[in-house]
């Protein structure tokens, strides 16, 4: 039986602490906001959890990345050996490195799924245009993390894939060569490239991402979850859509998903560790089967399929500019689909998205088959 004296002591201690904090920081408004926050419940509610899952994987990246920095050495002479040291000598280093690698890939995949769900459910419509724009830039940042992080182990595959990847902007007229030099820190992929990719990966990109994630979460919290137009249309007049509390109900559901993701990461790290491969040798011949990470494979393959000239313009130029234009359309999508804001979502968006995703999937598969 609980001792009433102990219970009273504990509760008075908690109350005193709460009062102490409240007197200084006035968090009452925040706690009231959390207490009153509700999340709509409907047949598409499951998609709401993808955003939280993306955030969880990002946190895993940050934590595991910080742990890796303790041992990683960003130079062409030591990078490979330091990663080898991490996975063979450092206690649980193999786990941290594999979790970091797998989590990076899962993060990009979940972020893409999250964006796809937002497109199909038209969650980007007014008033959430800026939530979408910040999310789109966050996706680009995740791809940037992937691209810069891929080179860091300084292995053969990453070296040549980076050589190919950083060379692609070189096809652009006038500024192409300068972009390549900016990316590589010279005309070739060298230790200088590794240094700047490391700086990009652990300082520049995280700084920008932190600001954007903060903004993105602020928008989401302030505006709440979007209800799909198809669900809204079925709500009868005078009726209210069923809701659940954000805290603790939704957060606990989120936590279940996060734990399952953690289990998946641990299983992948233990059963399918990320291979380190051979150390990069700039003077070696290019090994067969060089290809970028899966999330760049579709673009890479599409560029390979382009003819040398399209309408008199160099094929690679057309490809690079085409993908750039596609990215721009992706960012401003909410402003193009104005009808969605007034309950008239354009079906063309779903069709275009489906065609685009099918194209990317086919190109990715071909990239693996033809490599």
């Amino acid at each position, binding site marked *: 039986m609980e001792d009433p004296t102990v219970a009273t002591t504990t509760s008075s201690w908690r109350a005193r602490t709460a009062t102490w904090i409240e007197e200084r920081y006035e968090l009452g408004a925040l706690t009231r906001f959390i207490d009153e926050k509700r999340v709509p419940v409907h047949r598409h509610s499951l998609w709401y959890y993808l955003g939280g899952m993306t955030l969880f994987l990002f946190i895993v990246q940050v934590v595991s990345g910080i742990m890796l920095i303790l041992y990683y050495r960003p130079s062409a002479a030591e990078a490979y050996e330091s990663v*080898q040291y991490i*996975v*063979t000598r450092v206690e649980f280093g*193999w*786990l941290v490195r594999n979790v970091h690698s797998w989590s990076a890939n899962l993060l990009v995949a979940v972020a893409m799924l999250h964006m796809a769900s937002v497109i199909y459910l038209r969650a980007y419509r007014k008033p959430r245009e800026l939530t979408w724009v910040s999310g789109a830039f966050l996706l680009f940042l995740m791809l940037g993390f992937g691209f810069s992080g891929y080179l860091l182990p300084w292995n053969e595959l990453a070296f040549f894939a980076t050589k190919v990847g950083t060379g692609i902007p070189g096809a652009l007229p006038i500024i192409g060569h300068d972009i390549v030099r900016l990316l590589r820190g010279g005309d070739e992929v060298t230790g200088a490239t590794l240094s700047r990719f490391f700086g990009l990966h652990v300082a520049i990109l995280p700084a920008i991402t932190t600001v954007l994630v903060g903004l993105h979460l602020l928008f989401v919290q302030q505006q709440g979850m979007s209800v799909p137009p198809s669900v809204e249309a079925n709500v009868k007049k005078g009726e209210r859509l069923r809701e659940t*509390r954000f805290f*603790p*109900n939704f957060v*606990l*559901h989120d*936590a*279940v998903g996060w*734990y*399952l993701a*953690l*289990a998946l990461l*641990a*299983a992948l790290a*233990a*059963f*399918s*560790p990320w*291979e*380190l491969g*051979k150390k990069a040798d700039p003077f070696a011949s290019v090994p067969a089967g060089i290809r970028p990470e899966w999330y760049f494979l579709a673009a890479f393959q599409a560029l390979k399929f382009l003819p040398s000239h399209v309408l008199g313009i160099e094929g690679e130029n057309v490809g690079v500019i085409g993908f750039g234009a596609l990215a721009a359309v992706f960012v401003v999508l909410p402003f193009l689909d104005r009808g969605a804001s007034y309950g008239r979502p354009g079906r063309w968006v779903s069709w275009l998205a489906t065609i685009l995703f099918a194209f990317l999937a086919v190109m990715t598969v071909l990239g693996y088959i033809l490599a």
Partner: protein
Amino acid sequence: MRTTTSRPMLALGPLALLLCLAGGEARAWAQTPAATSAPNGCVTCHEKSSGAAAHAVTAFATDIHKARGFTCVDCHGGDAAATDAKAAKDPAKGYKGVLRGAAGVQACATCHSDANFMRKFSPSQRIDQAAEYATSVHGQRLAGGDTKVATCASCHTAHGIRAVRDAKSSVYPTNVAATCASCHADATHMAGYTKADGTPLPTTQLAEYRTSVHFAAMTKKNDLSAPTCNDCHGNHGARPPGAEAFVNVCGTCHTTFATKMQASAHAAVFDRGCVECHSNHAVQPPSDTLLGMGEGALCVTCHGDDNGAAAATSMRAAIDSLRDSVEQSSTLLERLHASGMEVGAQQLALREARSHLTLSRAEVHSLNAEAVTRVVGEGLAVTKGLDEAGAAATAELRFRRQGLAASMVAILLVVVALLAKIKQIERRQAEQDGPPAP
């Protein structure tokens, strides 16, 4: 095949004087090759004819000499500008007719033995082919009046000559054996030729060579440095290497083996050096089976119950132990690598162990069982370290799997607890909110 910068053009030692006498006149026209744009009366007539002359016109279209501006008269003499055959083939204009035997060799040597002349076309090309040819069995027999022997055109063709580096050339490394075999595998052509001991010269060399490790290296691995006929026999100076030279010939490439063999007890008793165990044209891939006193071993051919037999048995046992150990370590590392363990450093060490295995096999040629055992011991020390590292990695892998299982159970318990908590919260909230409004 180690190609020489030039291959060709043969000369006759006994004809050296004739070459010198003829050289001045021949060079006079050779140094000024006829312009390719000028009408060539030879072609005008011979391309309409049939037989060898017409074939010569066709073949010459791809000849390297044509590409360099030479024409028919540069070798055959005569007057290409003449409008009738008699004037064109006027001996007074240097017409030599068909160049057979010594005349062909002389015609080639006129330019190819002239350093000043060759410098203008191919400065790095050798000019001693004719001199070498004179030392060859072919050259010496030709000097003795045997017109069946090979001359320049026999190997290089007469009118379709290509650079040695041209894959279509009859003397390109992959084509040399077939070129030599066009005579040496022809029993009719070779009838009457004998070896030094009087036995008939065999015609099975090509068939044997095609079963060899050298032929496999050249044709299956595209290794153009693999030996073919001329690498052991010489090309322009072709002749059997001779019993005393076998070790040197094989040692051109197999230096370590040859050095150890020459220092061994076998050097004094093996008449044919390396060939005694490995044969000549049909050299097979070496195998550990050849060593020792068991089935398939070669040592048993000469040795019985003697020190040699004991040494062979001992060397074989040592090599077998290292080979088995290397294979065992290799299997272990492959399994660990497939399981995702990082074993890069161990794989590097495995290469070192393999090197010791190779070194121990080379050491066998010294016939020194102690030396072989020492090298094997060094290799076994490496594999021992690998086995220890492999065992540690296997234990680490087991630990990871067990750790994963434990963490999975823990995560599952937390998930179940969370789901239970959610259910409890929802039930409490439903009670607080009361039944839904009708």
